[in-house]
């Protein structure tokens, strides 16, 4: 499995002409864990979703190349995309409160994903569902399977979401801010769970977040996006050697316990970053 993105741009029409949300992003991904970091509106989510063609209908996508395992996503039909979505690449969204269907039980939603990509009986799907729920470390799979999303906590909901996306055993998992809506104590658990599953199944991971240290902890490689561009690409271990002033600025803003500061640094933005000419 290989993801190739070359010179990807995504624009949205506005009354004052098209507005570019992603401007010329290029990156490749093999069997690895890639983190995409950036602030809200930096285009990280759009970039990842464009791979699955899950953008809002008004989005205009152009690219020299946008391919998933050799399949050209730009020209792929809806039918071809459906054979990628779920089956080969899963997507985990931010808040299970909104991303799980409120009128279907957790079990129904997982079983649906399971059955879609394998021809199996209801009973097999039910057993697989319970097994998947156990794999995401839910202690009482039978109860959770019968519960509606509003009866589950955020962490539980996100486990259900992960189980659902793991069901077809995809090669790539895209996690779009998977822990931003969760309590701090649950965040680490969910990320560890995800990392564990990804490593054990030999899957690739794209982890989107605005939390730079967190991402570098779980990924092999990190790209930093700003205003629709990639401004820096680093090995996760080399975070301290970041060169771009934006990345350095972000890191400087972080409070640390070992070196308490009376006043936290704030970000001073250089308009030149917008053009990517720094």
């Amino acid at each position, binding site marked *: 499995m290989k993801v190739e993105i070359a010179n990807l741009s995504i624009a949205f029409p506005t009354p004052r002409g098209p507005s570019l949300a992603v401007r010329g992003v290029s990156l490749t991904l093999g069997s690895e864990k890639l983190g995409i970091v950036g602030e809200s509106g930096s285009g990280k989510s759009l970039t990842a979703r464009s791979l*699955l063609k899950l953008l809002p209908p008004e989005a205009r996508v152009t690219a020299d190349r946008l391919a998933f395992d050799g399949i050209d996503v730009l020209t792929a039909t809806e039918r071809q995309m459906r054979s990628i979505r779920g089956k080969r690449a899963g*997507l985990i*969204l931010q808040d299970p409160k*909104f*991303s799980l269907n409120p*009128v279907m039980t957790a079990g129904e939603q997982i079983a649906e994903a399971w059955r*879609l990509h394998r021809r199996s009986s209801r009973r097999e799907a039910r057993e697989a569902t319970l097994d998947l729920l156990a794999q995401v470390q839910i202690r009482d799979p039978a109860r959770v399977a019968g519960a*509606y999303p509003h009866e589950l906590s955020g962490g539980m909901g996100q486990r259900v979401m992960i189980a*659902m996306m793991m069901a077809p055993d995809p090669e790539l998992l895209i996690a779009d801010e998977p822990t931003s809506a969760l309590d701090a104590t649950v965040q680490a658990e969910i990320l560890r769970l995800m990392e564990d599953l990804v490593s054990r199944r030999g899957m690739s991971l794209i982890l989107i977040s605005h939390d730079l240290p967190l991402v570098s902890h779980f990924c092999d490689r990190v790209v930093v996006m700003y205003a629709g561009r990639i401004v820096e690409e680093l090995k996760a271990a080399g975070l301290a050697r970041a060169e771009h002033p934006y990345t350095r600025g972000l890191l400087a803003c972080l409070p640390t316990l070992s070196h308490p500061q009376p006043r936290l640094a704030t970000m001073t933005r250089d308009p030149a970053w917008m053009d990517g000419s720094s």
Partner: protein
Amino acid sequence: MSGRLRTLAATTASVLITLFGLTVVTFFIGRVMPIDPIVAILGDHAPPDVVARVRIELGLNRPLWYQFWIFFRNLIHLDLGRSVMTTHPVLHDIGRYFPATFELATAAMIVATLIGVPLGVLAAVRQGTRTDHIVRVFSLAGSSIPVFMLAMLSLVVFYAALGWLPGTGQVSVVYDGIAPRITGMLVIDAAITGHWNTFYNALLHLIQPALVLAYFSMAYITRMTRGFMLDALRGEYITTARAKGLSAARIVWRHAFGNIWVQLITVLALTYAGLLEGAVVTETVFSWPGLGQYLTNSLLNADMNAVLGSTLVIGVIYVFLNLLADVLYRLMDPRVR
């Protein structure tokens, strides 16, 4: 469990209060109308002493609150008084006329739902496209054209000009009274007693008024369905469903529609209630022997007991359909269950 009991008590109380309010308002509107029910009974030329006697017999000389008390007491015993026009008890009359209205409203409702809901879904799925615009104009027309106008236009075109459908009435005169009255709904009575000629004729008569009524309700149903669906389709869980690789049909019907049909039931119940009460104009244009026509005739004849009685019955139906929608909502939606 106590929470559920409390909800039940609160619902019952609110229904009772609504019904009482309905009775009060209906009664006093009936009394402040500048119509003298005695003139309606005796005619213009009755001698004054007779008028005075009837006034005392009917209790119209008593204070208004006392008259209301009598009315309310009788109402509790399901006695709505006698109709001056038909000389029958009002409740008996309503039992006679209501089935025809029920038949018409139900036929219209079925058509309106079967067309309106899919059209609304279609418009939402194709939002902003030509299909959407056509559906919206079509449904806007339905809610803008007055029903009597549409009814008469339809008669002019399909009855007078084209001759495709029979004109007014529930059935042609030759078939009148042939099928025995069981439910009061002619199409059904004719079908279960095997009077197929009557059945066919009555069905043809039903088509026009039912379609006119249906068009009006369909417009509303379509717009509401479209709105609900647009909301649902914007949900994050739709993105999840797409990311799973589900087919468009499954996303639309299982995931989006699955989230709105409970809300939709409320809309349908209220529309149905509106049809049961609001068929007055259509029934008049099509000479449909239903409650609407009974109410209109009673009004024109200043038959106050009949007017009060029919208004109350319509109000009660409305309140109970509302209640039914509420209960269904609570039973069906996992989020409020």
